[in-house]
C-alpha cells in the first residue's frame, strides 16, 4: 500500500474569472519506507498539495488516498496514522516540553499513562534530553523545530510529512534534523518533505519531484533527475578580460564552446558534456575567472523553474 497516492490533483482558489489555479493536475505516489522530497520555489503549490493530502482543504479535482484511505472522506482516520511538522512553529507556549507532547497525544486519543513513559525517549530523539520541564519560550529556534518533530512522532506515524523542516535553522541544527530523519527512514517510516534547499533534497531523498506553478516538472532519484535534465558539467564564468565582461564574452563565444549557456547578471553558466575545450579557451583569458564543477540539482531546478525571483 502506498502511504500517499495523489492523482490528477487540481486546487483552485476563488471562482469564475478570478479563480487562481495553484495545483494543476499533480500525480504522486509514495513508496513505503522512502524519503520523498517535493522541491519548488515559493508559491509552487507545495504547501497546498500537503494541505489537500491531509484533508485540510478540499481538492477542486482529482483523488487522494492517505494511508490507503480516501481523502477527504476518511481524512480524520488517515491523519491518526500520519505525523506532521508544519512550516510555522505551533508549539503551545503555555506548556512545558513534556506537556506539549502529552496534550498533543490527547488529540490522538492516546491516554497519558501510555505516552508519559515514552517522553524521555521522544525528547532524546529530538536531542532535548532532560528538557521535560523546560518552557517553550526558553528554547532556541532549532530546539523548537526538534520538539515539533518529537510531537509529530507521538502517534508512531507510518508517514511523516515535513513542510520545510530546516528553513531558518543553523547548520548544526539542520544536520541533526537530517540525521534523525535518516534514522526514521531506516526504521521504516515513510517521509514526505518539502524544501527549497537542494542539498537537503540531494542528501535525504530517495526520490524527488521538482514542481513549479502547480505542476511536477521532473521526478526521479536525484541522480536520475540530474542525468535526465542537464549536461553533466558546469563552468561558471565571471570577471573581465580586455574590457569584456562575462556576459559579453558569452554572447560572442559560448555557443561554440558549450551546449548551453545561461547568463545571470555578470555571470555566465556554461553547461557541457566536455569542459576541456572551454577551459583551454579560458586559460588564454586570465581576467575571466571560472569555477568548474559537476552539475547538481540546483542547476536542474534553475533550468526548470527559471532564475527570476518569486516573491
Amino acid at each position, binding site marked *: 500500500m502506498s502511504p500517499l497516492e495523489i492523482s490528477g490533483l487540481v486546487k483552485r482558489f476563488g471562482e469564475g474569472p478570478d479563480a487562481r489555479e495553484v495545483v494543476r493536475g499533480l500525480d504522486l505516489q509514495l513508496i513505503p519506507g522512502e524519503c520523498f522530497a517535493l522541491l519548488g520555489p515559493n508559491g509552487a503549490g507545495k504547501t497546498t498539495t500537503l494541505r489537500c493530502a491531509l484533508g*485540510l482543504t478540499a*481538492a477542486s479535482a482529482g483523488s487522494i488516498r492517505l494511508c490507503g484511505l480516501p481523502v477527504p472522506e476518511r481524512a480524520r482516520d488517515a491523519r491518526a496514522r*500520519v505525523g506532521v511538522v508544519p512550516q510555522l512553529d*505551533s508549539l*503551545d507556549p503555555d506548556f512545558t516540553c513534556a506537556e506539549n507532547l502529552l*496534550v498533543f497525544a490527547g*488529540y490522538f486519543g492516546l491516554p497519558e499513562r501510555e505516552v508519559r513513559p515514552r517522553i524521555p525517549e521522544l525528547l532524546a530523539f529530538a536531542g532535548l534530553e532532560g528538557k521535560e520541564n523546560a518552557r517553550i519560550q526558553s528554547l532556541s529556534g532549532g530546539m523548537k523545530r526538534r520538539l515539533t518533530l518529537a510531537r509529530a512522532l507521538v502517534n508512531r506515524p507510518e508517514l511523516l510529512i515535513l513542510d520545510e523542516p530546516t528553513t531558518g535553522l543553523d547548520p548544526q541544527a539542520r544536520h541533526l534534523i537530517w540525521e534523525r530523519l535518516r534514522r526514521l527512514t531506516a526504521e521504516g517510516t515513510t517521509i514526505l518533505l518539502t524544501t527549497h534547499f537542494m542539498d537537503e533534497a540531494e542528501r535525504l531523498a530517495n526520490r524527488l519531484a521538482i514542481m513549479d506553478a502547480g505542476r511536477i516538472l521532473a521526478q526521479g532519484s536525484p541522480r536520475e533527475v540530474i542525468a535526465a535534465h542537464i549536461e553533466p558539467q558546469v563552468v561558471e564564468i565571471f570577471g573581465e578580460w580586455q574590457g569584456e565582461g562575462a556576459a559579453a564574452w558569452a554572447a560572442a563565444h559560448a555557443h561554440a564552446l558549450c551546449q548551453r549557456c545561461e547568463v545571470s547578471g555578470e555571470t555566465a553558466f556554461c553547461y557541457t558534456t566536455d569542459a576541456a575545450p572551454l577551459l583551454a579557451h579560458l586559460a588564454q583569458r586570465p581576467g575571466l575567472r571560472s569555477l568548474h564543477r559537476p552539475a547538481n540539482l540546483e542547476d536542474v531546478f534553475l533550468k526548470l523553474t527559471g532564475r527570476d525571483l518569486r516573491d
Partner: protein
Amino acid sequence: MTSVTSHFAPPRLSLRLLAVWRRNFLVWRKLALPSIVGNLADPVIYMLGLGYGLGMLVPEVEGVSYIAFLAGGTLAYSTMNAATFEALYSGFSRMHTQKTWEAIMNAPVSLDDIVVAELLWAASKACLAGIAILAVIAAFGFAASPLALAAIPVIFLTGLCFAALGLIMTALAPSYDFFMYYFTLVITPMTLLSGVFFPQGQLPDAVRAVAEWLPLSHAVALVRPLLLGELPTQAGLHLAVLAGIAIAAFWLALGLTRKRLLK
C-alpha cells in the same frame, strides 16, 4: 466542496473535542488564580462601589436595595464579558497568533471539533468566573435563597450565547484591534441597555422595545429574580431566546471559521 453551502453545513463532531477543551482547561489551571481574580475584581468593585455609593442616593429599586438590585445584573454582565474576552482575545491567539488550531488539525481532530470545544470552553470559563462572583455576592448576603444556585446553569447558557457571538467576531477579525469595535459598539451599549445598572422601564419606549430583545436583557431577567429568591417570569421565553441566539450565532461562527481556515 468549497461552495458557500458546504461551509454552512451542520457540524460533524467527534469526542476528540474533549481533548481540545481539556487543553484550554489545563492552560487555565496554570493561571487560575490571576484569571479568577481578573474576572472577579472589576465587577465586584463596581458592584460594591456603585451599590453602596449610589445606593445612598437611591434607597430602593423595584422594591429592593440598590446593591441587591445590582447583584443580579453584575453576575449576568460579568459572565458576558468573561465569555466574550475568551472567545475573542484568547480564541484569536489560539487560532491566529499561536497557530494552535492549525497544529490540532494535523491530528485526527476536525475544525468543527475545535470550534465547538472553544465554544464550550469559553462558556465553562465564564461559568467558573460567574460562580466566583456568585460566591462573593452570597458572602455579602445578596444571594440568600437556594434558588440562587439555579443561576449557575443560566450563566453557563449566557456564556454559550456570548461565546458563540464572540466566535463570529474572531472568525472575521484581521487583528486584535478589530475587537475594539465589538466592545465599544456592541458590548458596552448592551451593558447599559439591558437593565444591569437601572431598570429598563427608565428607557424611552422605542429604545426599550429594542433593548428587551438583547441577549443580556434575557440573562438579567433570569438571574436577578433567582438571586432575590424569586422565580423568574417568562423563564421559558428567556431561556429559549438565549439558546436560540447561541445556536444561530454558533452556526454562523462555524461557517465563517471554516471559510477562513479550510481554504
